[in-house]
């Protein structure tokens, strides 16, 4: 995570760590594929801790979550534990607006499954899927897509 995107505010519980107002929050394992994709997007983003034992983040503003799915059999355990820990915080669930999945089509039916699961669980759209660290086309589409998405959401809010 970039230091600017995470403020070191006091934790609300032992389990919850620093808070963040980033519009993009992501999980990436030590293979760094998702991290590389987010870096290429060039927008401010907060990274969830790699290890489950570390305290999770507290979101302060609406955000889109980016997360990978590694190949699993029948999808058991598709969502990384650290992401589950993050979404078990009620405030984080109320602020999630969408999810972007990373994966590999070689994993067949479980391609980006973690994104599907969170989409259903949190009732937010699965906005986009890309493979590994994403191509430059993926980066462009997500960059534009997210801008449009946030604009549309704020318009909807003003209308209500």
């Amino acid at each position: 995570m970039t230091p600017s995107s995470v403020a070191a505010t006091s934790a609300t519980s032992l389990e919850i760590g620093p808070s963040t107002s980033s519009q993009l929050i992501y999980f990436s394992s030590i293979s760094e594929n998702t991290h590389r994709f987010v870096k290429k997007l060039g927008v401010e983003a907060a990274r969830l801790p790699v290890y489950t034992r570390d305290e999770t983040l507290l979101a302060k503003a609406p955000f889109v979550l980016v997360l990978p799915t590694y190949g699993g059999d029948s999808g058991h355990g598709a969502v990384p534990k650290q992401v589950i820990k993050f979404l078990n915080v009620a405030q984080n669930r109320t602020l999630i607006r969408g999810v972007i999945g990373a994966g590999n089509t070689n994993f067949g039916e479980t391609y980006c499954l973690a994104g599907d699961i969170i989409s259903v669980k949190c009732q937010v759209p699965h906005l986009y899927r890309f493979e590994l660290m994403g191509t430059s086309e993926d980066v462009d589409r997500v960059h534009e897509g997210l801008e449009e998405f946030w604009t549309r959401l704020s318009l909807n809010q003003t209308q209500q």
Partner: protein
Amino acid sequence: MTPEKLKLASHVVAINWNRIEDEKDVEVWNRLCNNFWLPEKVPLSNDIQSWATLTPEEQLLTMRVFTGLTLLDTLQGTVGAVSLIPDAITPHEEAVYTNIAFMESVHAKSYSSIFSTLCSTKEIDEAFRWSVENVNLQKKAQIVESYYYGDDPLKRKIASTLLESFLFYSGFYLPMYWSSRAKLTNTADLIRLIIRDEAVHGYYIGYKYQKGLEGLSEERKAELKDYTFELMYELYENEVQYTHDLYDSVGLAEDVKKFLHYNANKALMNLGYEAMFPAAVTDVNPAILSALSPNADENHDFFSGSGSSYVIGKAVNTEDDDWDF
């Protein structure tokens, strides 16, 4: 090929799985074990009727494709994965390579299961003879093999990742093509299991390559990057020839090449490099892509959709115990 002896790990310590240096080793070991399968579990005999609907040319093509894949799996199981063991950084990494090596041997054997179910002994022998005589198939095996016997451990990982993530795909195309036309669907199910395994192998070996790059001089990193792209070009040129050898008779060569470009990009990404082929030449036939993964088509791209409404993903089984809410 150099007839030198393969180096063995010089010093072996008792492996302690309770003291882990790299979490990726455990994660990938578990993933591979959970994914374990054997060809006997796939009801290949259900494809006998479908096989009979293929023309003699299509049958011949299919058998040649599978002997080509058998050669690569044999090479990877017998030499490739094993050659990575002496340079493993952790003992758990060594164990993962033994797992990969065994699974490649399972893959190699599974093609023989397909053959014995669908073809006569004479046809099988002829297809294997073809695999020995086809210049471009032999060349691709030799290019990779020469690096396995070479003395640069990082170059071995590059060659290995390109084999796992790129060289198989001229062959994998065909069962996906049949599957998209509702033919040989059980065979395609078996191939999908192989495709899934190869993705984990390529991911892991590519990851270990990137770990190996850490701490190297910028010069050496640049040398290895150049080498990667040179080897990719060399293999790609040969792959194009091989693709024409196989698929010209059925008019599919151009479609296969798009699939090659798409997978070459993924192989490079597994090594931590940017994709090389632009989107204009990686537009894989959607039928092939959806035979590979039902979620991979454009309908799943919310950003491309014009409306403000969206479809929530299909119902999925989740492990509710994992979640507090």
